[in-house]
């Protein structure tokens, strides 16, 4: 069974009956490897469509969970269940719960280091005090605002006021959560939250693939929220120095906020400053200062690692890229595409209104970035297949568009693989207006292909 990957959560969703005879056929280590290779930092099995399970059935999954947790240090567990299933699982594994239980997928995503919607108001209750505290700390670290209920009565009462909270957590159990560093995006800055004593473990906990992807898609400002850091050793120092040096290749900046140097040698600070790291007292000193943000590179997310130009190698792949894109949009809109014009130049978008865009980068044997500019109407039509209804919710359309572009990226990766070129794809990035897009790629030359889908103009742009 293949996982659905969203917000770095690999979700497996078996249906029907689970027992010792069939569980291994639903999920095996190869399935999990595919999900973790795609940078899943949480592996979950949804029990939403499971009507029957026994301990033998779950044991197969739990064994796989523990193996992957040991290897990858990620969060594993079950989600999407009712109270009956929750209490049954707790009973099965009362002696040793080394995995997590999330009542719903949306609750699980609050604990994902890659979940982009932070600052959620979350009502929280557990009759296990240590669980309650652990969850509150985790939620806080991931950028949310937990409202902890001390008693069940208080929880029941507050739960009635549904609209007051973005999510309500109960019947949830945090096993050992993955030690990945919490990550969030604010504007054009990527913020990492680090805490306690930083040592050699930082290189395991830090998602370097995500970081590199962020550089590849154009992020230029990376902030480490270090207000909860007690101290660090030489291994952590080396890690940050290297990270800063490699970021400099992209003209990116690394900053620390709230780092207290009372228990950190002064020489460490000097070394970090020498490698280009900047220090600020508070996060808001950066985020609320527009001029400083501009200076640090967060207002312009252009890829300026090197002044790359398109080469013959990448242009020779163009027909395959266009074909993959066209086939995907045709599939999603059930319409036919017509090619209008091809030109090599800077991107030219005649009408900027009612258009949205998305980009995805690929790097490896060949590097490049594909930008798709959609009339909102086509984007909405393409999204209908994925979300099942027409919508005007801009955020939902952009999210679904990102998934669509992910599909295009996956196809391109597989097409290049067929031609012997191995590449990785970056996370997709969406732009809800064309000016934001132009800020990133205005000066870049590339190949522009104008297409028409049912009388709507659509633009494909390939650049480096």
């Amino acid at each position, binding site marked *: 069974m293949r996982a659905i990957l969203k917000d770095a959560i690999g*979700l497996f969703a078996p249906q*029907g009956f689970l027992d010792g005879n069939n569980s291994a056929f639903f999920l095996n280590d190869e399935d999990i490897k595919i999900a973790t290779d795609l940078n899943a930092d949480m592996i979950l099995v949804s029990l939403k469509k499971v009507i*029957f399970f026994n301990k033998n059935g779950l044991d197969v999954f739990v064994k796989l969970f523990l193996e992957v947790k040991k290897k990858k240090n990620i969060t594993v567990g079950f989600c999407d269940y009712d109270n009956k299933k929750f209490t049954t699982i707790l009973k099965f594994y009362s002696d040793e719960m080394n995995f997590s239980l999330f009542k719903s997928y949306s609750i699980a995503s609050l604990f994902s280091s890659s979940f982009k919607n932070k600052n959620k108001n979350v009502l929280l209750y557990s009759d296990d005090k240590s669980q309650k505290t652990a969850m509150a700390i985790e939620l806080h670290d991931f950028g949310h605002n937990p409202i902890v209920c001390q008693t069940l009565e208080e929880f029941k009462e507050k739960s009635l006021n549904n609209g007051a909270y973005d999510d309500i957590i109960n019947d949830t159990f945090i096993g050992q959560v993955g030690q990945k560093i919490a990550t969030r995006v604010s504007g054009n800055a990527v913020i990492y939250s680090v805490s306690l004593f930083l040592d050699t473990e930082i290189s395991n906990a830090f998602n370097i693939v995500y970081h590199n992807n962020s550089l590849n898609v154009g992020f230029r400002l990376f902030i480490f929220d270090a207000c909860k850091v007690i101290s660090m050793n030489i291994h952590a120092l080396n890690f940050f120095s290297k990270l800063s040096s490699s970021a400099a290749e992209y003209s990116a900046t690394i900053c620390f906020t709230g780092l207290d140097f009372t228990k950190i040698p002064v020489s460490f600070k000097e070394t970090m400053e020498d490698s280009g790291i900047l220090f600020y007292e508070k996060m808001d000193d950066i985020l609320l200062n527009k001029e400083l943000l501009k200076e640090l590179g967060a207002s312009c997310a252009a890829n300026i690692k090197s002044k790359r130009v398109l080469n013959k190698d990448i242009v020779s792949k163009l027909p395959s890229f266009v074909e993959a894109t066209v086939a995907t949009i045709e599939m999603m809109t059930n319409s036919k595409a017509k090619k209008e014009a091809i030109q090599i130049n800077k991107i030219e978008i005649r009408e900027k209104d009612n258009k949205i865009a998305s980009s995805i980068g690929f790097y490896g044997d060949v590097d490049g970035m594909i930008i798709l500019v959609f009339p909102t109407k086509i984007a909405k039509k393409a999204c209908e297949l*994925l979300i*099942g209804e027409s919508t005007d919710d801009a955020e939902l359309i952009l999210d679904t568009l990102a998934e669509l572009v992910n599909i295009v990226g*996956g*196809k391109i990766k597989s097409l290049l693989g067929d031609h012997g070129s191995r590449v990785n794809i970056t996370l997709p990035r969406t732009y809800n207006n064309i000016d934001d897009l132009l800020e990133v790629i205005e000066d870049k030359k590339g190949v522009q292909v104008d297409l028409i889908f049912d009388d709507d103009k659509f633009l494909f742009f390939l650049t480096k």
Partner: protein
Amino acid sequence: MITNKIIDDFIDKIPPKPDILQATVKILNDGNLAKAAKVAEEDLALKAYLCNLVNKPIYGFKNEVCDIGQIFGILSLSGSQQTVYNYMLSLLCPKKWELFNLNENSFYELQANLSLHWKKILDFLNINDKDIESAITLLPASIIVTEALFSTKKEDVKLLRSVNSLDYNTILIRLCNTSLFDICNKIATKWDMSEQIQQIVYASSGINPSKDKQINSLAKWMHLLLFYELSQPTFVEAQLNDFIDFQLEYVQDIYEDFTKVMEL
């Protein structure tokens, strides 16, 4: 990706019920098992199918049974009709399965399991009606239709399903406003299967409950039985488990009885 034209072409290509089968079903309907067996003997493929089917372990015969008269005798009237319908459906199977990891044997096994367990359910419900008994034979048509429509779009579907939990039925509805079960009904109409059979199978998708109480109840049992079978290792491995969406809430009220019937 898939258009209504592709669906229409698929339905157009479905052959009408072969003459021998038509005659066999008619005689079975008249209740003459011996005469029906004699007619069925003329179709060697049908004979081979029946022989293969009843000698599967699930039927539990010690010695091989290959005489059609004997087979019809064992299966009884309603069972014989059901088996002839199963055979008709098997004629639609692809020579090579591309989308699902199935083969002739595993598909026959699915048919046999569904048929025998359906009989058990009907016995539990005290229902003795050969049309209702035969209804189960149409259910696997949904699998054949999925294979036929999606096998050439395997990679597209794989990518689509990697980002969103979409079953084949939902994809088809969103693309063409037609469900797999609509297409099953078109097959049933072409083969003169009864209206009742069509209604039960249509409601068994779990997303279009029937207003008729008995039909809806039977559809629930059929939906749950389908997912019981699709949870068996062979069919999980064949990637059939999530080809349509399991509607857990739809079957919740019969679940306890189901566990009794299936001795879970």
